[in-house]
């Protein structure tokens, strides 16, 4: 039964199931959905995921639209190396950190990313075209996010709070990785897949907060994940400069 994955770049939510599938050795049919062209709000895609969010995965008659639970499905449904620890306490820690990435660290990081990258990338189009694009977005929460990005409606206070949280979260993650080799503990897991998708570009986007001197454990953890064959394979699928940022994790880049 073919796995169809509808995704954008190997980055953030799209990259999570891409990397999980590669780690399991599961081939998938890739359907590239260009976020910056609003492919995810087009009628063809809304037939697959009426929420208009990416990624989405179709496996037989099953449709999965939440990226972190989707990764757990990938691990549960397919043969291949396990991506969850065998110890229930490590499994709990893995899930706690995935929620930390998804609900706390990620939204602040993405607010900064949308203000400096996604917004400027789409803003030059005519206002009417952007308004029409917003009108096609099914979820209220996504309409709010896109409106802020398109029309640069981020307030300085909320961006400052996001920057504070990113700095705080980077410190918390460094503290954690100074005591644990991997996110769950002793075992490479979905927690690392999730965290890498969130944080692979931190050394570039947050050079003052994340670097070899200040966060050596994060840097080493990112490089270890980047050296995995599955990571190389998936990031090679990137079509934009966004995915190319991963190359700064080459050890030779810092030799």
């Amino acid at each position: 039964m073919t796995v169809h994955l509808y995704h954008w770049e190997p980055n953030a939510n799209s990259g999570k199931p891409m990397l999980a599938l590669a780690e399991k050795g599961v081939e998938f049919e890739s359907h590239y959905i260009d976020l910056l062209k609003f492919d995810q709000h087009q009628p063809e895609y809304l037939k697959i995921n009426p929420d208009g969010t990416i990624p989405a995965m179709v496996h037989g008659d099953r449709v999965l639209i939440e990226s972190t639970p989707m990764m757990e499905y990938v691990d549960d449904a397919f043969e291949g190396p396990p991506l969850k620890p065998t110890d229930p306490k490590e499994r709990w820690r893995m899930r706690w950190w995935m929620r930390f990435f998804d609900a706390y660290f990620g939204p602040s990081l993405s607010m900064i990313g949308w203000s400096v990258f996604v917004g400027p990338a789409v803003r030059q189009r005519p206002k009417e075209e952007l308004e029409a694009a917003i009108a096609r977005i099914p979820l209220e929460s996504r309409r709010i996010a896109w409106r802020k990005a398109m029309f640069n409606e981020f307030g300085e206070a909320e961006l400052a709070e996001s920057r504070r949280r990113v700095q705080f979260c980077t410190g918390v993650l460094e503290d954690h990785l100074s005591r644990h080799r991997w996110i769950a503990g002793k075992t490479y897991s979905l927690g690392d897949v999730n965290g890498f998708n969130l944080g692979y570009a931190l050394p570039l986007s947050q050079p003052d907060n994340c670097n070899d001197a200040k966060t050596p454990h994060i840097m080493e953890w990112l490089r270890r994940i980047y050296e995995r064959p599955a990571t190389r394979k998936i990031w090679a699928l990137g079509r934009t400069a966004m995915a190319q940022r991963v190359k700064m994790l080459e050890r030779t880049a810092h030799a």
Partner: protein
Amino acid sequence: MLELYHSEPNTFFLKPLVALHEKQARFESRWFNAEQLDHFQLNTTRDIEAHLHLEREGPLLRHDDTVISNSFFMIEYIADALPGERLMPEAPYDIYRAHASGQFLGAHLGSLVPILGCVKYLVPRLHAMDRGKLDARLASIAPQERRVSWQALLDGTYTPQILATARERLKFPLARIEAQLASGPWLAGPRYSIADIDAYAMLCVLPDLTPELVNESATPRTCEYLARISARPAVRAALAMSRSGKPEQHFVPGVEPSRWG
């Protein structure tokens, strides 16, 4: 050793109590008065995961040398690690549905329900407290997101307009639940599971907090679902651990609403 640190059996605190009773697990109940902010005086652990409470408030489960936090992942841990009644779905897609439900309802009900409950029941109690003692306790709360959530209850943040918006936003998750229950009796597959424990703990207070949204005519399947779960012996046993006799009237601040607006 299994110890549950909890307050009145409602919302976040109700979930692990139900799961532990479903498992018929032997555990020590460590009750604290969350409305007096007593839990900030507990020195359970300095672990990142327990200190940086992603739900902002909630139970802690000590199992031997580990302190488990986050109410949804706690009930998944109870389902996973303890013997007894199976509480996890079996099929991978049903497990996906349980995780997706926990994530979706955690973000929506987890933020909206506590706002309505706190404004109705907790705020008058906070105002009745000695203000000097309350301010001293508030000042000691870290990280700041937890402190801010308590201060917002006292500083007039929750205006009638914000409460009206919260009620309006509840319609979205409530409609999804009602639709899901049209396709089966439980939220994640053919059997009762952690998805139902998770949903019940947040939904069961809504007939009181928002009777206009949750009632026999607007949400018949949800009402029948709640009645079915309320009748379970484990749910009755969990609610019977209340010290006030009215657990449904005790709330703590919940998950931070989306910062995107």
